């Protein structure tokens, strides 16, 4: 069953070596050329408020894509307020003092009353001793009434409505643990309209319909985490892998925390993190930098300035005990494990990329060939890194989906055998060259898409202080050696640095006795 014959090796290897050489030659100047061609097309500008603008010209079709990269995510949520960054991201779609309201002056007063009513209601509701249920009811009614009053001034979804009527495509946002991104694409003749909208929502957010939106976010949690077996597993896995750093905290928020975030807290978060020095805005498409830059400058100068917020100083202490999570439930088995690794600024960052490529990328990868093709115990097996973020030290994770009749323990053992090979013997020349070739090609392919490029430029500018790093990283990729891979594997993939999580399938009868519900 596991017999496999490499019948082409004699001529094949030689042939493959030649092929690799040809590819290397084809790519030799790719980086330099692309960097040069992009330097001619890209203009950057740092505004007095600290906000960085990037414009990349591409005149194929009369459209542009933008990306706003805010260097703040759920890792920055204060203690007791997990899910706050994400909650604020939702708020950024609710409009400003000029859009989404029929009378902002009166709305502002009404919103202050909502906040006061919520404070009063929460204070009573959260009383540990001597809570007056009748008072709770009354205060809740008053809170709902205040919301209804404020709602009179709302023009629902006007912000997104104006965007969609003006051709916004792929309108969305993403809050990660490290950062928050807002993005869409539009016809090029709406550039100024977009600049007005985007700069307005960054600088002039109104906590409109906040408490309804909080309910929506809690539904998002139920969908992504509570009602999804892998979502549940990953949340427990991270909470176990980290003891101090916020990477261990639920990104979308623990129910009791995200369910009680207030508009005041969201606005405080905005005030602290949505400042010029923390934001990069990139535009890619059919725009002329000489014409666009003054327009962008006019609008984005509205964003408040100020020093960059202090970085989080918590450092995850070195793990010294192996940890394991077992979820027993009526879903199919699954195995996941992770090892702490350094952040993206680590000199070995590209070595981790090499390991995940060699272990996981495609049907030539070691995990596929070993667990899926040869041992036939898994339907899928991969390693990936960093997880759940890259700004702070994350994890190098591996997972495998067992075939019917196979167990998480078999996945674990098989993954460990592959990891041991990395530690005890060098990867082949072919594997290492393949990693370098594919990395270059993937970078080039990614340049074709306006939105993808806008996202990359904004992210690299923010993370490295220079978008050119998107191309320059290829130098570091080129320098990865077999010895690097072995050294890093031996350093990181050790039992005391490991956390694993698995789903063990429980028989229906046993499950029936258990209490249901995740909240």
């Amino acid at each position, binding site marked *: 069953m596991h017999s496999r014959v490499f019948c082409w090796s004699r001529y094949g290897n030689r042939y*493959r070596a030649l092929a690799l050489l040809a590819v290397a030659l084809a790519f030799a100047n790719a980086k330099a050329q692309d960097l040069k061609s992009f330097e001619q097309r890209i203009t950057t500008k740092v505004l007095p408020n600290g906000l960085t603008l990037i414009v990349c010209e591409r005149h194929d079709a009369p459209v542009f894509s933008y990306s706003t990269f805010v260097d703040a995510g759920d890792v920055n949520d204060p203690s007791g307020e997990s899910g706050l960054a994400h909650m604020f991201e939702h708020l950024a779609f609710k409009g400003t003092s000029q859009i989404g309201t029929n009378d902002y002056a009166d709305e502002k007063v009404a919103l202050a009353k909502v906040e006061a009513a919520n404070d009063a209601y929460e204070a009573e509701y959260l009383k540990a001793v001597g809570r007056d249920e009748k008072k709770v009811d009354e205060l809740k009614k008053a809170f709902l009434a205040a919301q209804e009053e404020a709602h009179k001034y709302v023009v629902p979804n006007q912000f997104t409505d104006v965007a969609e009527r003006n051709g916004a495509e792929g309108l969305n946002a993403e809050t990660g643990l490290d950062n928050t991104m807002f993005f869409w694409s539009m016809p090029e003749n709406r550039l100024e309209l977009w600049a007005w909208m985007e700069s307005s929502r960054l600088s002039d957010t109104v906590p409109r319909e906040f408490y309804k939106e909080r309910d929506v976010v809690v539904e998002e949690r139920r969908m992504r985490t509570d009602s999804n077996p892998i979502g549940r597993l990953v949340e427990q896995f991270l909470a176990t892998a980290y003891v101090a750093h916020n990477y261990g905290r639920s990104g979308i928020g623990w129910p009791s925390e995200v369910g009680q975030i207030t508009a005041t807290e969201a606005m405080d978060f905005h005030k602290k993190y949505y400042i010029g020095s923390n934001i990069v805005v990139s535009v890619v498409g059919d725009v002329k930098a000489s014409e666009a830059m003054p327009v962008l400058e006019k609008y984005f100068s509205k964003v408040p300035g100020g020093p960059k917020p202090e970085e989080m100083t918590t450092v995850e202490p070195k793990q010294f005990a192996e940890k394991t999570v077992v979820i027993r439930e009526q879903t199919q088995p699954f195995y996941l494990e992770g090892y702490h690794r350094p952040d993206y600024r680590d000199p070995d960052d590209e070595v981790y990329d090499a390991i995940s490529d060699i272990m996981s990328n495609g049907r030539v990868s070691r995990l596929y060939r070993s667990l899926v093709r040869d041992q*036939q115990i898994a339907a899928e097996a991969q390693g990936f890194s960093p997880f759940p973020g890259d700004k702070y030290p994350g994890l190098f994770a591996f997972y495998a989906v067992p*075939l019917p009749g196979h167990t998480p323990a078999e996945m674990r053992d098989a993954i460990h055998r592959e990891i041991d090979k990395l530690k005890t013997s060098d990867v082949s020349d072919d594997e290492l060259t393949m990693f370098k070739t594919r990395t270059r090609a993937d970078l080039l392919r990614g340049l074709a898409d306006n939105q993808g490029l806008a996202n990359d430029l904004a992210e690299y500018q923010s993370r490295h202080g220079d978008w050119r790093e998107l191309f320059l990283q290829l130098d570091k990729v080129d320098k990865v050696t077999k010895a690097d891979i072995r050294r890093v594997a031996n350093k990181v993939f050790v039992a005391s640095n490991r956390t694993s999580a698995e789903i063990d399938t429980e028989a229906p009868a046993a499950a029936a006795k258990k209490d249901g519900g995740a909240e």
Partner: protein
Amino acid sequence: MKSLDLKNFSRIAPLLAASAALLIPSALIAQQEKPWEKIPVPKLHEFKPQEPKRIELKNGIVIFLQEDHELPFISGSVLIPGGSRDEDPAKAGLIGLYGQTWRTSGTAKMDGDHLDDLLEAKAAHIETGGDDDSTALQWDSLKGDDDQVFSLALDLLLHPKFNPEKLQLAQQQEATGIVRRNDDESEIADRESAKLVYGANSPYTRQPEIATIGAVTVDDLKAWHDKSIGGKLIVGVNGDFDPVAMEAKLRAAFEALPPAKPAPPRHDVFSTPTPGLSFINKEDVNQSNVQIVGLGIDRHNPDVPKLVVLDEILGGGFASRLFQKVRTELGLAYSVGGGFTLPYDHPGEFRVDLLTKSASTVDATKAALHEIASLNTQPFTQEELDRAKDNLLSSFLFRYDTREKVLAERERLEFYGYPADYLETYKADLEKVTLSDLTATAKKYIHPEKLALLVVGNGPEIKPSLDELNLGPAQPIDITIPMPRMQPGQGGPAEKNQ
């Protein structure tokens, strides 16, 4: 291009218009300015999408060439008629297995594993796959590798050598999907609601089982391949190539093939679903997945542009009736939306779905049903019509803003036999839709009494109970996975294959 008409912009969402007008003095409304209306919208830059060159060979095979010299890559595909709706029901899942095994097996000259090694070293790809009405082979590489990669792709197209070991691998992976298909609530809801529309044994919904995938043999894959490859192939190539040389290369490859056989006519029978409520209990979730479904129409129908505008008003974007009501106003769902799927050659579904916490299942479902019914009872406003048309037309450009998208659209139209100017006609028809069209279209296609409802959720948590919906008793659906001959610790369907 001044397509925007923001002058009639209502300050208040249509749903609240009546009550809000009583509460807010009109003078107050007029106070708030709309700065965005004052921002100039210049004329859009001239743009004529580059159409691919179409070449029809004597044998009926059609080739499209789309040049794009921005990046040094070439990609291509061969689209082959026939898919899972054409497979033997006793071998349901054949197309999925075929799509995997075709590529992983490789050819007599080079088996799949060696293909993997060779291609990945060049950061190139050749992949195969199947859908409900077609299968396809695709390739992509740096332009300098195209000759070699294309000849490998052609060899795989014309001379595949299906390997029983690779079929077994595909069967194991397919079996893994089957035993896991009830783990995820949304997967259950989508699958089972489609069965309510088309019937459980329809070619569009029948599902692979351990037994049916186990019944598939290498000979079945060969037979499928030999038959389908004789159909009308559509070849599309995109990227950084010389058009004269590429045309010569493709002609040399495809001209010698025998005349393409036309696809046999289909005789599918479609009927509206049995109205009523069905329920699937899943006790490890705290959110209900609600599906409201009915039988729709196909894209040939001249009412499609009107229906698309109607869809936009019902469930299209942030400003749609469903989103405004269920998410924004009630805060009862993160995910809510819906409308008509409009397949190119068979009736699609009408589908509205939402996800809401167990306790609000009844409220959210009632609200969604109310919004569906409102299409026939609550008159459409000019505001709604203008917004829907603006939304659809101002972003229309994104259907052809890259050469790759233009190529894909032309291939699709060719495959389904639509005129090449379909998008232009369709856009012109969207522009013409009127208020009375909407009323008539809703009357013709929105029939709340003919809809079926499915709730997947945590039964004990759903309070008030589904009885409150007044749709009669909820019919349970059994989703137990048939597990013939599966022994713990055994490798699934593999044994059947030996």
